[in-house]
């Protein structure tokens, strides 16, 4: 028979390439460096109304100055340029003295601190130095118990008011807290401190390894993962009741809990099905359901705090851990990083940015350096925030979207550091070593 019966069909499958991933370092608008003039604020020394308030007044002055300097939106007049005046009331205040050189302030914060019958009374005013007709912007009075902690609290409250009025409606962060892990080899416990590093104190006393603490959006509970009898489990500590509350245990290793924006759900990584996947449960642990189902570990979920309907997490489905986003029901998986070793994401409060730790040159022989990066989600453009300061990890956004707290082992010991969201004004918050995994509270 003729061999023409046989036909050969060649099928060529053309495989289209994906859209390109994160382009190189471009400008990312985080809102703190847009070229708008910072408001020039003079924080005057408050007037002591009674002789015994000197020590508390000194604390108040330093804390108020530090809060305003840390806010990221003010240009604080340095203490040496202030006129040698301590006006205690609006009647003693003459704004023209503060608006001329060398002070040249646009706003002046002043007032008085006194102790009356065991109570610390602080009167604070914020005057607009350029508006001689109607200078008053704020007038506040605070009364608390007369101790050092109250002086700090009142200074934080007053600074928050000033930041709210002058900073475009975004509340200040002076009263927020940071939870973190403290402990080297041996047991690791959950500790908490003020946003400026003051008052570090332990929260849990479990005597075992506890990791990745996360405060709930209403500041009432801390969820973390702790090594117990049944392996790593999600545990919840109630700050209102000051004790652990129940969370059902599950099989496998359960790590990195994350609260949703409304506090009703917790996402976490669980390997109860064999492979670590992202699971979502209600805030009390009931009704867990799986949202990822790919091979490779899926860890470190974080919710979109603006919409509450998206989750960013780290997945090793392609080999090295990369950053992904998806809807909260598991649809719309999008890869964000194009290589390297990415870990521990945190979503910005306005929903536009992700910050994470990234080692772009990971591998044997490569000069690995893990640094904090910020990526704009819509365009996938990223910017590197830390350079050559040791290994940096576990970044966490502040609720005003202007600051990032992270852990760094510059100098050999792991400490908590904080910086503005554009990488400037970096300074250390903790001092006693072996501090890791910070998380900023929501308010």
């Amino acid at each position, binding site marked *: *028979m*003729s061999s*023409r*019966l046989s036909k050969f069909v060649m099928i060529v499958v053309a495989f289209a390439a994906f859209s390109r991933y994160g382009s190189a370092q471009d400008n990312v*608008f985080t*809102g703190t460096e*847009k*070229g*708008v*003039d910072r408001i*020039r604020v003079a924080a005057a020394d408050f007037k002591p109304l009674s002789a015994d308030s000197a020590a508390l007044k000194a604390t108040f002055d330093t804390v108020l100055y530090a809060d305003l300097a840390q806010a990221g939106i003010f*240009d604080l007049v*340095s203490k*040496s*340029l202030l006129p040698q005046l301590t006006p205690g009331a609006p009647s003693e205040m003459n704004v023209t003295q503060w608006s*001329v*050189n*060398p002070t*040249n*302030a*646009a*706003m002046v914060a002043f007032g008085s601190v006194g102790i009356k019958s065991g109570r610390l009374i602080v009167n604070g005013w914020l005057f*607009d130095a*350029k*508006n001689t*007709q*109607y200078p008053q*912007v704020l007038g506040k009075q605070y009364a608390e118990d007369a101790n050092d902690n109250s002086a700090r609290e009142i200074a934080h409250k007053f600074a928050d008011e000033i930041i*709210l*009025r*002058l*900073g*475009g*409606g*975004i509340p200040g962060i002076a009263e927020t807290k940071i939870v973190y892990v403290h402990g080297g080899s041996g047991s690791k416990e959950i500790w908490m401190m003020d946003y400026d590093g003051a008052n570090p104190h332990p929260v849990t006393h479990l005597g075992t390894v506890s990791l990745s603490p996360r405060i709930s959006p209403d500041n009432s509970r801390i969820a973390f993962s702790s090594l117990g009898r049944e392996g790593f489990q999600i545990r919840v500590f109630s700050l209102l009741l000051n004790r652990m509350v129940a969370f059902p245990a599950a099989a496998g290793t359960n790590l990195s809990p994350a609260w949703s924006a409304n506090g009703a759900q917790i996402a976490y990584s669980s390997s109860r099905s064999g492979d670590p996947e992202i699971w979502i449960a209600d805030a009390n642990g009931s009704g867990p359901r799986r949202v990822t189902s790919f091979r490779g570990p899926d860890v470190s979920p974080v919710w979109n705090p603006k919409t509450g309907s998206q989750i960013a997490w780290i997945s090793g489905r392609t080999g090295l851990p990369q950053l992904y986003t998806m809807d909260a029901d598991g649809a719309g998986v999008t890869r964000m990083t194009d290589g390297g070793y990415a870990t521990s994401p945190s979503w910005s409060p306005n929903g536009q940015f992700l910050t994470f730790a990234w080692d772009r040159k990971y591998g044997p022989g490569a000069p690995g350096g893990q640094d904090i990066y910020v990526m704009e989600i819509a365009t996938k453009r990223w910017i590197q925030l830390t350079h050559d300061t040791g290994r940096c990890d576990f970044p966490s956004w502040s609720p005003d979207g202007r600051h990032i707290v992270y852990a760094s082992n510059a100098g050999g010991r792991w400490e908590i550091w904080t910086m503005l969201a554009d990488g400037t004004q970096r300074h250390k918050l903790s001092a006693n070593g072996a501090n890791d995994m910070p998380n900023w509270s929501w308010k």
Partner: protein
Amino acid sequence: MTEKKREEKTGASLVTALVLHGVAFGIIVGAGAFFHKKGDSWGDRSEQATAIQATMVSALPLPPKQPVKDDSVLASETPSPAPITAKEKVEPPPSPRDVPIVVKKPTKTPPKVAEKPTPAVQRPQPTKPVPDRAQTGETGGVKVAMTAVDTKVGTASTNVTDSAFGQRYAYYVKQLTQKVAQQWYTALLDKSAPGHRVYITFRVERDGTPSQIQIAKPSGDASLDQSAIRALQHIDTFGPLPDGYSGSYINVQYYFDPK
């Protein structure tokens, strides 16, 4: 008996199959032969094999030398030298004695007795403006009008229609202007477009949220107008209206002038 039947059946089906295959084969070959193009296909047996002829480059001759046309200036092989221009005759400068100057000789008069000089009148000197630079080196803040903000991308200015509000709460208006100026993303603006200043009106509610954003006077550049509206829509809140203000909203007129 069944084998015979099967053999018959197979025999019959084999013949049918062969016939059908033959018909199909015949159709294919016949159609090919029937529809075969007669004549030359492209490039076959053409006189000048210019399009598909390949020649070794090393054997390619240079283009022949064109005959030189000397009278054409541009094609000449020997360009003429630059024309000699006569040096400009520079006139010598006039000597000082060329033009006679008539000087009136003063008539001799007896010398006057010098009067006592009156004390110089102290005219009030204008006060020197205080320099912006502070003595220690720190620069002073930028002095702009309370409601105008100069940023890297342009100038933004707000005007609250309730002028008493603008006077009393100037800090709020300034903070409002800065917040909108911060939102401005001008990278998508059309640089060659003629329009410049766009006027927007909007309302700020009691809790600080902007509403009723409208273009009051378009700038002539649609992309600038749209980016202005988008900048306002991006803003969640300006911060609550000051406590001392009793109204429930303020109307704001806003213009933006990109650099």
